[in-house]
């Protein structure tokens, strides 16, 4: 069994726990286990863009220092936002020795972080290490041509220096979906922001975005969308329903880990959702139950 150190992040640890539960089951079927960090803190969600701000890199720095101290060179995340913040913070700190020294001096209650921890997103691990062939072999319940629109959001592919794939035409979700037996339906809105945290201050912006993203997916024939971030999932689920109101059914959305789990015969950890994906799955012979 291969093992990798795992950083859940606040969203996955709380309401997006189904993303993690599905990932555990799927990875077990692929011969991998996630070893959660014993003590971790919030990564900060958003990467601080100011040149003079060190304080908002303290959170990520602490996580990286602890990962290094635990003897690990890699840190796995499921949430794209955590991935993005940790990855960019790692670079920000290590590209300038002065910064690193200052942050280490501040974090005098942790062992020094000397650089070198590689933050890895699960989609990267699947693509680069596990391999799509191994995934295909592990598939027990092929997704029967389910038409799925990959929704990347922003944090998986931007900026280029941190992204796991091309920002304009990424393939990593499409390739995974094909390995699972689904039919990916790329969308022109697949890499356009869902609104992220603007959902808190300007929910109408998030509603408009959710409507646009889901309509573009549906226009391409998609029955379902997949996400890699709890905030995208929230926006595409809750805000989409609010945008459509009583009139439209909407296009349901799942975490990519849930489809992966479903296909390899593990528990997809279905949760109560605002837009229910079960009818779409059932129509393709992929009936699943929501755990009580």
């Amino acid at each position: 069994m291969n093992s990798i150190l795992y950083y859940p992040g606040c969203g996955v640890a709380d309401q997006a726990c189904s993303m993690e539960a599905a990932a555990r089951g799927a990875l077990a079927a692929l011969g991998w286990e996630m070893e959660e960090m014993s003590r971790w803190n919030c990564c900060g969600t958003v990467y601080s863009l100011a040149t003079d701000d060190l304080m908002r890199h303290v959170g990520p720095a602490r996580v990286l220092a602890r990962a290094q101290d635990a003897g690990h060179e890699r840190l796995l995340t499921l949430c794209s936002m955590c991935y993005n913040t940790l990855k960019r913070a790692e670079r920000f700190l290590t590209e300038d020795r002065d910064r690193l020294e200052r942050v280490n001096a501040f974090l005098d209650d942790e062992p020094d972080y000397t650089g070198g921890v590689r933050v890895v997103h699960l989609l990267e691990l699947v693509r680069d290490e596990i391999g799509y062939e191994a995934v295909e072999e592990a598939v027990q319940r092929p997704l029967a041509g389910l038409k799925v629109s990959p929704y990347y959001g922003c944090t998986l592919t931007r900026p280029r220096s941190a992204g796991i794939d091309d920002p304009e035409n990424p393939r990593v979700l499409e390739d995974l979906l094909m390995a699972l037996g689904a039919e990916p339906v790329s969308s022109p809105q697949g890499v356009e922001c869902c609104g992220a945290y603007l959902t808190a201050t300007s929910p109408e912006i998030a509603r408009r975005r959710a409507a646009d993203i889901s309509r573009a997916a549906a226009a391409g024939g998609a029955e379902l969308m997949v996400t890699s971030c709890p905030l995208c999932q929230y926006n595409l689920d809750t805000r989409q329903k609010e945008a459509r109101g009583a009139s439209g059914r909407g296009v349901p959305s799942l975490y990519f880990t849930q489809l992966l789990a479903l296909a390899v015969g593990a528990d997809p950890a279905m949760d109560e959702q605002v837009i229910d994906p079960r009818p779409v799955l059932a129509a393709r012979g992929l009936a699943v139950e929501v755990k009580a």
Partner: protein
Amino acid sequence: MSTEQDNIRIYIMGKAYEVPGGLTIMKAMEYAGYRLVRGVGCRGGFCGACATVFRRAGDYKLYADLACQATAEDEMYIAQIPSVPAERAPWELSELAPEDNPILALYPEVARCVACNTCTRACPQELEVMDYIQAALRGDIPQVAELSFDCVQCGLCAMRCPAEIVHYHVGQLGRRIYGAYRAPESGHLAARVEELRSGAFDQELDKLERMSKDDLVELYRKRDVEG
């Protein structure tokens, strides 16, 4: 190097005093002539009233402790924080549903935590304050309750936090929710309450209520004391 019998010099709010070595900060302040009416309480490290901040000579760090517990040292610079301004969010335990995580809703500033750990360093009880705030952020109520258990609400964490979180209020809310809704139910307690309700102790209680004060005192003196 002064021994315990030698005098040491301490600075209380900037003014120098010679006091015997080996005293707690609180006793040293009183020796110096301060009559404490605020910032003093149980004198036993339990009530959290005597929150104190101090510096040591030649050391840039700001330390925090309870005056009744910390020993005064030579060249210490001392100031007290007898009262910490902190508004407690209004909540009714009976209105909080068991599955709720209302912590973030009632104290949204918890989202501002940058994991700097200043709170942990300020805690005289050596609690892992940052960790319980992080647990609160992710809705892990049992961990909030466990890690904040020994909090004496001295307020030193809240005074130092750059995100302006009031940690002890968050901890208290977490403990209340845990105790009311999440802690495993004690079978013994439920059984005992049932016994009381069914009148199993009525006779004995009746008897005690009708006894005279002298008889009660006698009964108390003659009671079985274990150990």
